[in-house]
């Protein structure tokens, strides 16, 4: 198992580090929030990410992508996590790209991959319907109608769904589940932007007998569960990498604060009660890093155990990132409660990533079941 970065990966990490610190630092998220930006992310930034090859990191070379694999995608995601960068990377470059790569037909690949690579088209994947992630409980119906289908039902927490040009919609069909590619302007579609606690965006989407043709089926009818498996594993690992970045950064901010802040005439980092909390967190973050690397490597090697490994990584990051965020607020004292510091922004983003594509409880439950108890 490759738990160390090779030279190429180190170079990519450095370039991503430089890129996001310069082009999309936390300040950018504040601006997007404070100006109530319509898109919720910087379009020029996404165009530059496309130029850098970040948007096409999972797209095969024959379709114009850089096809660097999951470890690379994870390193990019980690740097975005450090900077709280808002972008359609997860929804378009990871979830949609993976869905297309694993199951789309040639025509769909020829149509959509170049659009992803250039950054001109963004996607959103519509899976969840209730307050908790539950991909095995899809109830949005796709009823056969003529040569096509009619989609009826609701989706919620569709990340970047308010700006996406195309939606990948998971629906229940007669035999199992099926994924449909639905353009944002389809008739009967109602998209409501939901601004979330982390100042990022999602959408609640209502489908009122939206008509789709057979050509809009991604892959084959009834293949939805396989597509979901592949898409969700990719998304969870990339989210875990983002959580690693966010939690590492907020822990570093906290340690800096412990080295500067004075009370009782001493630097507060001298107090053992605080030192031990910071050191325990450091250990947890090392475990978190190993878990993320193991998950990304498993995806790149696509072994049998991918789902289990990725699930364990998402479970671990759920609890470690949460710990990092909570310790950050507490150890910053009153300052941690202010909007002036970035700590709160990390707490909020981490809370959202904890929930996305299954929280720790969800993945622990799966892991226990998978091991037969």
């Amino acid at each position: 198992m490759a738990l160390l970065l090779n030279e190429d990966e180190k170079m990519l990490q450095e370039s991503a580090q430089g890129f996001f610190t310069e082009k999309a630092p936390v300040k950018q998220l504040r601006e997007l929030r404070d100006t109530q930006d319509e898109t919720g992310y910087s379009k020029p930034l996404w165009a530059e990410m496309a130029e850098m090859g970040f948007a096409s990191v999972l797209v095969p070379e024959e379709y114009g992508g850089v096809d660097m694999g999951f470890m690379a995608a994870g390193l990019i995601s980690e740097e975005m996590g450090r900077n709280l960068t808002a972008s359609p990377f997860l929804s378009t470059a990871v979830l949609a790209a993976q869905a297309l790569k694993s199951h789309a037909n040639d025509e769909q690949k020829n149509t959509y991959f170049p659009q992803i690579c250039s950054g001109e088209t963004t996607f959103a994947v519509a899976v969840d319907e209730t307050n908790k992630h539950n991909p095995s409980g899809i109830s949005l119906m796709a009823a056969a109608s003529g040569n096509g289908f009619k989609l009826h039902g609701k989706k919620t927490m569709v990340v970047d769904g308010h700006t996406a040009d195309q939606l990948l919609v998971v629906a229940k069909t007669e035999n199992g589940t099926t994924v449909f590619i639905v353009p944002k302007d389809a008739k009967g579609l109602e998209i409501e932007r939901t601004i979330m606690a982390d100042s990022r965006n999602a959408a609640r989407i209502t489908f009122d007998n939206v008509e789709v043709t057979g050509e809009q089926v991604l892959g084959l009818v009834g293949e939805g569960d396989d597509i979901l498996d592949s898409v969700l594993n990719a998304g969870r690992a990339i989210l875990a990498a983002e959580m690693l970045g966010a939690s590492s950064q907020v822990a570093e901010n906290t340690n800096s604060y412990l080295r500067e802040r004075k009370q009782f005439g001493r630097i507060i980092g001298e107090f053992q009660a605080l030192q031990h909390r910071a050191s325990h967190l450091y250990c947890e973050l090392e475990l978190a890093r190993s878990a993320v690397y193991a998950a990304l490597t498993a995806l790149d090697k696509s072994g049998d155990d991918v789902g289990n490994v990725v699930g364990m990584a998402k479970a671990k990051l759920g609890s470690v990132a949460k710990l990092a965020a909570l310790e950050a607020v507490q150890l910053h004292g009153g300052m941690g409660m202010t909007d002036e510091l970035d700590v709160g922004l990390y707490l909020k983003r981490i809370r959202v990533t904890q929930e996305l594509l299954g929280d720790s409880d969800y993945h622990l439950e799966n892991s226990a079941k998978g091991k037969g108890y």
Partner: protein
Amino acid sequence: MEEFRKETRAWLEENCPPKMREPLRNEKDACWGGRNWVFQSEDQKIWLERMAAKGWTAPSWPKEYGGGGLTRAEAKVLQQEMNAIGARSPLHSFGIWMLGPALLKFGSEEQRLRYLPEICRGEIRWCQGYSEPNAGSDLASLATKAEDKGDHFLVNGQKVWTSYADQADWIFCLVRTDNTGKKHHGISFVLFDMESDGVSTKPILLISGRSPFCETFFEDVKVPKENLVGELDKGWSIAKYLLTHEREMIGDYGEVKPLSQIIAENCYTPNPILRAKIAEFEVDAWAFAQTMSRMVMEAKAGASLGAKSSMLKYYGTELNKRRYELMMDLAGHDGLEWESERSNDGQLARSWLRTKGNSIEGGTSEIQLNIISKHILQLPGA
């Protein structure tokens, strides 16, 4: 490497007695060697002799010191092939695990040639004299005195928590040779025979009902000058080196049976709350195992682990304590039996109690967190 694997497999197949491929049933099944060792069986003796003849009790040590002279990769293959047939370790030895690495790094050529081969052959059993009644976590304040008497040191004082001192032949010991400067200065690392006049031991009965540790007393013990390892007064660097080494080892419990397997084998049905704790534990254990592998890779790539060994020690031992708490929870009434054949003389309960020491020995969890704060997080000292 495939050729080496093939040869190794064939050699093990031919030379490892079938009985030595069975899991250890109790402590006596682990062979510790030494002058007074009574082999549990002829197989145990043969297995040690054959492995020692190959130099495979210390596979990666140089051949001239009784080791196998294997490269890291070859040593790994050997371990894999032994695991594959369930071969027992031929020799448990503080000489191999602890003193050897220190002598290889700090010892003189003469000392290496004298002590290492007999360690590899399992002829001399060593113990470690570090902690004292008033020098536990604050190890550097140790006071066992070694006075310069010309051709020898005269050692007086007391050690505590000396593992298996009552069964050991020799001791590697930290003594104070100068108390005029800072406490880290003036500590020396010496070796001597436990049969020397003035050495006595007294086992300490633990909560597990067993006595793996002793108090060790020194009264006018004569230690020849040539038994000093490294420089006089500079033994602290050897002690630290060994502690780091020990910490990496304590944190690593090797391949242990997953709790899920224990549940399946015993048909346990944990209630939902226990089940949730187990699921959480298993994810942590997995992430820790990944971290161990990552650290091994980093070390191989040439990066020194340094204070990260404190992370492994801290997390590994806390994890092991959690594991045994969960095993006790799972076993319920069965786990409480203390003296019965069915429970293998309270194996689980006694092991559970033994694990409580994991986060104390080799530097407490709190000391490890101090080290991380200081050396990794660069937090200021109090």
